[in-house]
């Protein structure tokens, strides 16, 4: 069904819009089924493609890589922007090992396996490299959407790993392409280039993050809406500069966002929300693009090997790599087991898979088509079982309460205090206390109490009752004392 323009585009937007709305409105229900929403868009892409009803002929791998990288940058930027230092520091070691050695090990194991199945060395190594990293967007979607509450160490490890391992996967893929193009180039010294690329990426990231947050605090754009445009620009710049300096652009973006997210930013909560939304849309767009890029008729010939590779990756390569990497750290076995099971893969292999096709490596399209099976399988399987496994391994923690209302201060100037809301539970020290009995630091106070549907003023004789939502403002130095009295703040 080839439609003339603008009807063709209109039809495309109509379907995409319907599916987008559908997936937002029913995200809870779909999530309970365990089918990741992104797969719907993959199917939509396939339906829209030249062999589907849409008849959109899209096989421009160059455009796919370029657009895909933009999306990936936005996804990683969101990942870094919303990660507190503490979370990174806590899991620096396990996540760092997994993101480097773990990726290489997974890639190697998978390459050996598909080689044994009869694939050539070049293709085997490429496939291993392309699908070696876990997916930031997929992991963040599962862990942050407020849908799953994991023990911090496990959750943070998975999160930081997923953001920090894409650079390694990209470096490996590019290396393998070089080797494929000129096999003589293969030398041990190539391995030395990897830490150098990571170091350059990290350094550029720190610099961009530092300068970025300074600029953000200084400038006064005419409208608040321009702030996210500026942060996106910083993300793109960070990738560009690092990559042109022969460093890892993806690591640079992640580090930039980490540095910015942990400094004082104007309109911080608004920025966080916009980037979350951008990351979500990016992920969907990537899957849509993958759907358009694959041709079902070309998938069939590699279906057997693709599925075998997907199974091997989920049941052997990932678990083995994780266990070997985490062995020296002596983490509890159930945590290691969990991390090895949740090897969600997603959009990254789609982009990386297009790299060798662009470089005209022989057999690259076959690899790309196999990536399809691996992505689908490893999105479906952990996605569908994650709840069950979390419960089974007793790794869930009590859900953080949701605020009944959001009270926040948005300011272009950095403020010296913050506002947090707390649900008063019977076990909290302040429950049952009159306001006058609470010893507040000099620069802290209760701004508002929400009791059921009523807003209650905080006066001296007002007694805090279980179930109240209390909004407290305080200086950052007093945060620990405030949390000692009130408990953990509500989810933002």
């Amino acid at each position: 069904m080839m439609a003339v323009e603008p009807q063709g585009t209109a039809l495309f937007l109509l379907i995409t819009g319907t599916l987008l709305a559908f997936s937002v409105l029913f995200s809870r229900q779909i999530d309970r089924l365990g089918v990741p929403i992104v797969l719907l868009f993959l199917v939509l892409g396939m339906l829209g493609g030249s062999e589907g009803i849409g008849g959109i002929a899209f096989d421009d791998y160059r455009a796919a890589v370029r657009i895909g990288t933009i999306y990936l940058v936005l996804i990683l930027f969101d990942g870094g922007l919303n990660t507190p230092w503490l979370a990174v520091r806590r899991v620096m070691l396990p996540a760092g090992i997994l993101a480097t050695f773990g990726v290489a090990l997974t890639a190697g194991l998978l390459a050996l396996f598909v080689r044994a199945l009869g694939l050539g060395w070049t293709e085997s190594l490429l496939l291993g490299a392309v699908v070696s990293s876990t997916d930031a967007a997929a992991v963040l979607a599962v862990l942050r959407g407020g849908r799953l509450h994991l023990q911090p160490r496990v959750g943070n490890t998975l999160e930081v790993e997923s953001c920090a391992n894409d650079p390694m996967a990209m470096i490996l893929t590019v290396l393998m392409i070089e080797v494929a193009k000129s096999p003589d180039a293969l030398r041990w010294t190539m391995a030395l280039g990897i830490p150098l690329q990571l170091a350059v990426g990290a350094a550029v990231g720190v610099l961009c993050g530092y300068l970025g947050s300074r600029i953000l605090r200084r400038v006064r754009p005419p409208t608040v809406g321009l702030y996210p445009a500026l942060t996106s620009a910083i993300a793109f710049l960070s990738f560009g500069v690092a990559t042109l300096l022969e460093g890892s652009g993806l690591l640079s973006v992640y580090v930039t966002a980490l540095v910015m997210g942990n400094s004082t930013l104007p309109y911080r909560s608004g920025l966080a929300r916009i980037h979350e939304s951008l990351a979500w849309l990016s992920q969907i767009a990537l899957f849509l693009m993958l759907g358009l890029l694959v041709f079902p008729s070309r998938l069939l010939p590699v279906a057997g090997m693709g599925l075998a590779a997907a199974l091997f990756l989920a049941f052997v390569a990932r678990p083995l790599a994780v266990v070997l990497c985490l062995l020296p750290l002596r983490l509890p076995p159930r945590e290691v087991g969990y991390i090895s099971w949740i090897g969600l893969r997603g959009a990254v292999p789609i982009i990386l898979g297009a790299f060798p096709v662009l470089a005209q490596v022989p057999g690259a399209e076959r690899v790309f088509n196999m990536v399809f099976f691996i992505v689908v399988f490893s999105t479906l399987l952990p996605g569908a079982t994650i709840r069950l496994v979390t419960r089974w391994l007793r790794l869930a923690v009590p859900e953080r309460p949701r605020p009944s209302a959001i009270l926040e201060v948005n300011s272009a100037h950095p403020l010296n205090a913050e506002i947090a809301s707390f649900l008063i539970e019977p076990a909290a020290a302040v429950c049952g206390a009159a306001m006058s009995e609470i010893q507040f630091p000099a620069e802290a106070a209760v701004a508002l109490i929400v009791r059921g549907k009523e807003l209650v003023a905080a006066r001296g004789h007002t007694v805090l009752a279980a179930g109240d939502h209390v909004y407290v403002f305080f200086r950052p130095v007093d945060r620990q004392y405030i949390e000692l009295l009130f408990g953990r703040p509500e989810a933002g």
Partner: protein
Amino acid sequence: MKFADFISRRAIRAELVAEDKEGVIREMIQALLDAGKIEASEFESIVKAILKREELGSTGIGRGVAVPHTKHPSVDRLMGTVAISREGVDFDSLDGEKVQLLFLLISPPDRPGDHLRALENISRQLRDDTFCKFLKKAKSAEEIEQLLDEADNNQFVA
């Protein structure tokens, strides 16, 4: 409020042996039991209440200090104890550091004011780096007691 008003001297422990969060909490409550401050029959119920509070967020307030606390109907006045873990225990603290110095508080449910004043006193005094460092280094219950007395006499914080 002073430390002397609620810290039970006979329940102070300078060498905790437990290596995890629940373990050290149990050890400190046992110390209060041994000091005759709580009833043996209430032991488990108090442990549960303290852990319930930890579920709301760790009472590890950073810099190696934790203040596990609860309200419990079996006590008729605010009481507490201090303990030190040489190795430090993982307390899911806000700053991720292990905890060496612990203050544990139990207060009657109908006296939230005392409870809050005690928490304020502990936090305020521990802001003094010297006091905090000396306490963590204390070798015996007597030494801890002496440091608390000095703090009560305003020798650390004005």
